[in-house]
């Protein structure tokens, strides 16, 4: 029986989670708490402010996580932290916190790849054993499949991530960032009904979102400055809700298409969606229809595990720790660039 505490802070969420692994039993989540830095409408979160947020909350969150879990410091076997990828300043403040705890409590450190954390937690929660993984968040858009001890990237966004595209469009429309810009876009999209023509940019298993963002930003800009836009078929006015709807329908169709291509390529019928955008129910629905047509199914988790959290870092870190992996304190750095396929996955066959 081993217990790990995980610290995550690669973007605007600070998460602390405590997990227990018992051989031949599912992992037990002892606590999983999060505090999010929310920027005002029309603004993104800046690295400096986000780092200040993480620094001022980390002690409180660690104390609360320990209290909720009912374990003592002595029970903890290792301290896992996000090594990357992510924003530099927030990553650093969490790495400093993890190092401090390791020295204070005299426990080994385990540096974890954020993307691998998402994948492993998704597999653990859904029970999907060998799925094609669509990892979609504010910083990442990747289609991943496992082969020979690596999570290999079959396709990805060649420029900005899907979540970044949605977040930035939310800023253009001045939508609230609370609880998350993508969530608010999803709610508005439910009221949209006219599909406007947006560029659709898929190249094999890769895709691109910057052109789409540029297009829809300009379109919204014209609308906000008073130009009336009408649907060519019905003559009805185009609303901001229609824009959210069109953006989601187009961008998600691209994601489903590249995922389907990867599934056909590797011959898999399971698909697992992870990352913050993976909470979106329309994306889950579209992916479900595609998977059903291929005779398979879609696996997705809810916001506790889709959105960045500490438990996934604890889980993936503990998997590595059980194979003998630790990060010596003088190597306990963090990095903004850390590709999913750089991690040697020793814990899988």
């Amino acid at each position, binding site marked *: 029986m081993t217990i790990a505490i995980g610290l995550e802070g690669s973007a605007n969420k600070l998460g602390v989670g405590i997990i227990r692994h018992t051989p031949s039993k599912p992992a037990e989540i002892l606590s999983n708490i999060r505090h999010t830095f929310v920027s005002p409408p029309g603004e993104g979160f800046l690295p400096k402010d986000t780092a200040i947020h993480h620094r001022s909350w980390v002690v409180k969150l660690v104390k609360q996580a320990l209290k909720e879990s009912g374990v003592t410091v002595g029970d903890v076997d290792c301290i896992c932290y996000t090594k990357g990828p992510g924003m530099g300043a927030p990553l650093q403040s969490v790495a400093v916190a993890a190092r401090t705890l390791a020295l204070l409590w005299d426990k080994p450190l385990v540096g974890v790849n954020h993307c691998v954390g998402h994948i492993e937690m998704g597999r653990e929660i859904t029970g999907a054993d060998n799925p094609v993984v669509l990892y979609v968040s504010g910083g990442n858009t990747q289609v991943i499949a496992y082969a020979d001890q690596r999570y290999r990237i079959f396709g990805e966004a060649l420029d900005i991530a899907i979540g970044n595209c949605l977040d930035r469009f939310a800023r253009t429309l001045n939508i609230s960032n609370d609880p998350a810009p993508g969530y608010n876009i999803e709610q508005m999209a439910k009221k949209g009904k006219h599909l406007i023509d947006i560029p659709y940019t898929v190249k094999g298993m890769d895709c691109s979102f910057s052109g789409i963002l540029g297009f829809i930003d300009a379109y919204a800009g014209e609308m906000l400055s008073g130009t009336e836009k009408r649907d060519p078929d019905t003559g009805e006015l185009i609303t901001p809700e229609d824009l959210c709807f069109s953006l989601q329908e187009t961008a998600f169709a691209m994601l*489903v298409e590249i995922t389907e291509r990867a599934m056909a390529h590797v011959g898999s019928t399971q698909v697992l969606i992870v990352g913050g955008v993976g909470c979106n129910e329309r994306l889950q629905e579209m*992916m479900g229809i595609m998977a059903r047509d291929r005779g398979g199914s879609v696996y997705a988790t809810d916001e506790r595990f889709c959105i960045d959290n500490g438990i996934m870092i604890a889980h993936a870190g503990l998997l590595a720790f059980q194979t003998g992996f630790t990060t010596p304190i003088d190597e306990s750095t963090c990095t903004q660039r850390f590709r999913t396929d750089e991690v040697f996955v020793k814990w899988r066959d």
Partner: protein
Amino acid sequence: MAPPTPRLIDGTLLKQGAEAHVYKSTFLLPDMPCVIKVRPTKPYRHATLDMRLTKHRCVSEARLLNRCRSMGVPCPAVYFVDEKRGEIIMEWIEGPSVRDFLNDYMDGNSDPDPNQGGGAAGTQLDTLMQNIGQTIGKLHDIDIIHGDLTTSNLMLRHRELQAPAIESPRQECQGLAKNNISTSLLDFDVVLIDFGLGQVSNSDEDKAVDLYVLERAFLSTHPRATRLFNIILDSYKQNCLSSAVVLRRLQEVRLRGRKKSMIG
């Protein structure tokens, strides 16, 4: 906008990819074989978007095929396009794919080693590789990017296809592969198929990525044939006008493996 009613296709399903289904059937005459490529409706996406994409892709693939053909790059002739249904009916290319041919060749010939060259079969194999390089060179000269160059998408077609003496070029090639050279490999054209991911572009980067895709596909399916791929590149160099810049770019593409470094 309701999608058109699906038509029952009279033919055998050859391949079901992520995007399209490919059938073998006949066109106009019962002895005129053809290929029907269908892009079925994707129920997961908005009907308007689905219609727009299907139509666009269907038309663009047919245009690429026509452009290749009119510029002398061997590819299937387009017989009929029904863009609303997302169907292209095109010429049936009889013959093995280069992938199957090379696999048969490797199975049947432990000797001579394809990496050594020499021997009648070896020289002919070299000529085949030169043909591949030349065909891709021609394709890139007319600014068409194939998008999915693999050895499965390169076919070998006998020049005198309709000649009654040749009952099955596939068997012929197998015979040939097993060193029973009754017909010369020189009698076969390299034909490009499946332009589903193709595009028109004059960028060196796109052309280099095209070659890189072929290199990866070639070396992963035929690991013993590294020397053969270099013949393709040599021939490409001699036959494509912009080959110097493209091959220089290929070096860069190989180094970064097409993928960017991950940020955030």
